[in-house]
């Protein structure tokens, strides 16, 4: 049994401008001790998706299920949810500068979490544990720093403190929501390394939310690519990088800057992600897709197994054999598109081709 099994999760928010469909039927599972990377642009629903698991999306209308160790997290009573938060599933948020409470000492904030789940721990024991944890995540002189306020920590150190807090109760699952986005590049690498090390030590499962495929390459076992609130592609890390099927995944890969001194220009995905209030009909990606076909305008593709492996799934009408970045795969795609593209789809394709490249978004 998987540690976490999410089935057809849907989250929407009624607003004055209309209903925001943030998550539109996503299913995935996380195994014990494994890392699932959830990748997507801003507004793809990845943050809402994970916060919904812990009931942190007030005002959202939620359906579907999220089974965590036999308990459905959707519709759990507030009290039962409190016992899971921090103890069973903990979260590391994106911005370490604002995630810690500015008016309380870092150590106090860690102790508060420990003691709120286990009343038998004394203040002194909790402080000792906090010192130990801060040392463990690589904060120098933890015994002194435990009495510092967050503003006395650098951004990287604050994120380390957040991580110390997240692992303090040895949770079974850690949700890391873009934990490195707000940090500079060298610190990013250190934080990822730390997460990886801690995960290997404790056999914790990790749900890594990111817009950065580089991060996924570093630490994920499996990857879920999200687009406009739905899963575009779901596969092992290997398959995502070497056998991508969905044009969106392919676009993400091609927009990664390579550090090697190649003169290739980045290929951004043209256009912007759609508004989650007024989604395009059919496949939500079709207005930006170079392989747009007639049926993409009217029919919404579902996740189906592609290539030979049963675990590799993609939500695209291109032939299931068309995986990877090889010329054969590209030929297969082109042939299919030629047969499947008429009147309306031709217009869409021409609009995409005519769009200036500068308007596209480089995501990696």
């Amino acid at each position, binding site marked *: 049994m998987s540690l976490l099994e999410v089935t057809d999760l849907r989250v929407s928010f009624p607003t004055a401008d209309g209903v925001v469909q943030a998550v539109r039927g996503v299913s995935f599972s996380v195994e014990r001790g494994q890392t699932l990377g959830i990748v997507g642009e801003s507004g793809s629903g990845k943050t809402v998706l994970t916060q919904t698991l*812990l009931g*942190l999306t007030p005002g959202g209308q939620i359906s579907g299920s999220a089974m965590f160790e036999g308990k459905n997290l959707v519709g759990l009573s*507030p009290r039962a949810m*409190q*016992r*899971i*938060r*921090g*103890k069973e599933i*903990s*979260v590391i*948020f994106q*911005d370490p500068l*604002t*995630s*810690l*409470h*500015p*008016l309380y000492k870092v150590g106090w904030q860690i102790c*508060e*979490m420990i003691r*709120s*789940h286990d009343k038998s721990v004394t203040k002194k024991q909790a402080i000792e544990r906090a010192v130990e944890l801060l040392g463990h995540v690589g904060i120098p002189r933890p015994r002194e720093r435990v009495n510092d*306020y967050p*503003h006395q920590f650098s951004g990287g150190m604050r994120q380390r403190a*957040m991580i110390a*807090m997240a692992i303090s109760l040895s949770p079974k699952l850690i949700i890391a929501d873009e934990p490195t986005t707000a940090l500079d590049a060298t610190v990013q690498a250190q934080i990822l390394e730390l997460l990886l090390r801690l995960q290997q030590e404790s056999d914790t499962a990790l749900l890594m939310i990111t817009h950065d495929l580089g991060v996924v390459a570093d630490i994920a076992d499996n990857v879920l690519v999200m687009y406009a609130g739905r899963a575009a592609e779901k596969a092992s890390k290997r398959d995502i990088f070497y056998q991508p099927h969905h044009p969106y995944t392919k676009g993400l890969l091609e927009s990664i800057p390579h550090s090697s001194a190649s003169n290739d220009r980045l290929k951004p995905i043209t256009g912007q992600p759609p508004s989650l209030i007024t989604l395009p009909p059919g496949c939500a990606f079709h207005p930006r897709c170079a392989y747009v076909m007639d049926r993409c305008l009217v029919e919404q593709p579902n996740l189906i197994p592609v290539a030979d492996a049963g675990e590799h799934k993609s939500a695209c009408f291109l032939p299931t054999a068309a995986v990877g970045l090889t010329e054969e795969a590209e030929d297969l795609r082109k042939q299919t598109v030629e047969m499947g593209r008429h009147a309306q789809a031709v217009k869409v394709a021409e609009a995409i081709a005519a769009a200036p490249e500068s308007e596209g978004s480089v995501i990696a």
Partner: protein
Amino acid sequence: MSTVRFLIRRILTGIVVLWLVSSATFFLFFAAIPVQDVARNLAGRAASPAVLQETINYYGLEKPILVQYGHFLGNLVHGNFGNSFYYQEPVTTIIKQDLPATISLVIGGTLLWLIAGLAVGILSATRARSLFDRLATVGVLAGISAPTFVVGELLILIVYTQLHQHGIGFIETGYAGITSGVGPWLGTMILPWVTLAIVQAAVYTRLSRGSLLDTLGEDSIRTARSKGLSERRVLYRHAVRSAMTPVVSQLGIDVGGLLGGVVVVESVFGLHGIGQQVVTAITNGDQPTVIAFVILAAMFVVVANIVVDLAYSALDPRVRIS
């Protein structure tokens, strides 16, 4: 250590402010107009030429202005505000008489409006856009719009008059010092407190509601929830704590200002506090009293600001000097 140094620096700035205020007062009253007028201002409109000459001699009004200025400041430092010609007694005696009523009014009123304002503000923020919140908004609007004298008169009409008609004499007007017993003191203070609190509580409800709504949306509150804390703890230990900083600074400004005199409430209930006395002094042209109360009011504001700064550094480690 740093707090002591911080305090010393703030006290020194406070003294500079007081010096500026008293200097401005001095030059307005003593230097900007002819000596005869100064003497008339000090001795009262009805003073005879002999009395005027006596006043000129007493205050040394014909001496060089800088000498007078030094004398004026020297007196201030010793707590000597001169004599009120109107009451024929030292101004300090008048201050001692009137201050207890104002202090009673302000402290009691502050407690009342803080409790009411914060309670309604917090409930409104946690139940934003609920029926309670909407009713509270209407109440706030009514409280802010209602003129103090109308509220005061209404309370007298409804509570005081009704009780007296039914032979219950607990609520009285005027001021009974706390030395005359807690009962009588409460009897004279309750209505003024409520009057003062109604207007102020409205301001504090709005302030705390807005501030709390802002903090409830902050990332650190989401973190607190994700730690598995109870909603009550998230609200009070995390959100309210952050939301209190603007309330504290507003409180300092209000209390400092009000201690200088709550003219309308004091007058409506005949409390004979500082505010009422100032108005009387202005009407009577009792200049020494007016000067003293101007400086006294400035002092309260200065002290309140220092207290706010101290409270701020106690509340928020980021403004502490390391």
